[in-house]
């Protein structure tokens, strides 16, 4: 009589709902991108406008701005769903909570991480990066932000029960995010210098895969505790 929804179908619905909600309320969507753009374009104004010097600091600027912008956005990952009882329905849906939270994290990356990678050439251009280096910049920020979303999901789950848990969330996530920052900034730096950037990019991808396998499990456990 009842035909249960397949895991794929459930995940598709979770992603679709998040995208639709985000586009009904675009302000929240634009916020992290705007933050990233403002921070990165302020540097050329504050530092000397000498392109060679800007190019030296570009990887650090891009990555610190991307990291902070991701951390800001992480607060919204589970918060609204926890408030209105959607997470509770996830737990009771008969589907794997790990899988549903992975879908949720993926849509969060689509809405906050991927746009960063897409607008990064604008910021990188303002910092004097050559056009030829852009693929490396986009790839490292794309993979890095995916890893950040995944690892941040654990922290977001753990701080569900905390009022205004933003600072706590940052403190919890930062130590785990440091490897991503190191490998990501290194890959971007090598890409900007037009040197082979494969090695740090692979390490970054390895961190992302590690997050892919472990973070949703951790997030699910954290959310279960948070809902009690």
């Amino acid at each position, binding site marked *: 009589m009842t035909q249960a929804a397949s895991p794929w179908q459930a995940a598709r619905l*979770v992603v679709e709902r998040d995208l639709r909600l985000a586009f009904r309320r675009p302000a929240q969507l634009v916020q992290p991108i705007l933050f990233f753009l403002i921070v990165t374009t302020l540097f050329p104004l504050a530092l000397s406008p000498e392109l060679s010097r800007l190019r030296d600091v570009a990887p650090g600027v891009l990555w610190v701005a991307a990291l902070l912008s991701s951390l800001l956005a992480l607060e919204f990952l589970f918060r609204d769903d926890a408030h209105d009882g959607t997470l509770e329905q996830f737990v009771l849906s008969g589907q794997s909570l790990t899988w549903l939270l992975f879908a949720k994290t993926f849509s969060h990356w689509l809405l906050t991480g991927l746009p960063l990678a897409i607008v990064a050439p604008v910021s990188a251009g303002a910092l004097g990066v050559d056009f030829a280096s852009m693929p490396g910049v986009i790839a490292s920020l794309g993979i890095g932000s995916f890893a950040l979303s995944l690892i941040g999901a654990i922290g977001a789950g753990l701080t569900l029960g905390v009022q205004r848990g933003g600072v706590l969330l940052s403190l919890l996530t930062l130590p785990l995010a440091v490897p991503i920052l190191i490998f990501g900034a290194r890959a971007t730096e090598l890409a900007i210098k037009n040197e082979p950037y494969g090695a740090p990019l692979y390490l970054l991808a390895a961190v992302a895969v590690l997050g892919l396998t472990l973070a949703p499990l951790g997030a699910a456990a954290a959310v279960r505790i948070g809902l009690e």
Partner: protein
Amino acid sequence: MTAELRADNLHLWRGEQHVLRGVGFTATAGRCLLVTGRNGAGKTSLLRTVAGILQPEEGCVFWRGEVTGVDRRRFQSEMCYLGHDAPLKGDLSGAENLHFGVGIRRRFSADELHAALARTLATDFADRPVRTLSAGQRRRIALAGVLLTAATLWLLDEPTTNLDASGQELVTALIDAHLASGGIAVAAIHHPLALDARVTTRLELT
């Protein structure tokens, strides 16, 4: 095995408070368990414990003769829990909420969705964003969601909250029909429901 929900000697602590002290009950197919008690007696906690959101310190819940914790997902796919706040997104319409919210549980056609909305008299406002609806209208959308899950076991926390007189009759009729089709309902209530005394069991929490 036929549908049967049984709880044995449930003890639940919330911090320093001993909320459930050895609660036990049995609800068989076609029967409704009405949980009553003063505010803070643990009605919501009992429902959440049965649903598997809270873990009791002692005691077990059995579904079809098996402990629910063993295959929690199978149990939960046969169960629908409606808390006193309906899990609806304000920016989505009622129909969209059900499409996404119940859609992660089971497949259903657009006809089924509309039939459920019509049954709870929610068709007129199903396409408006939920944040523009009154509390009673939201409740009707949520009840349509319960119907749509086609679950055997309903766990309803204050199902008549915010509903007008016709809404309260609707809840009674929905539960009646659910019981008649072999379902089980557990409802935490403050206001008496006009259900047939022959199919209801009362559980007073102190």
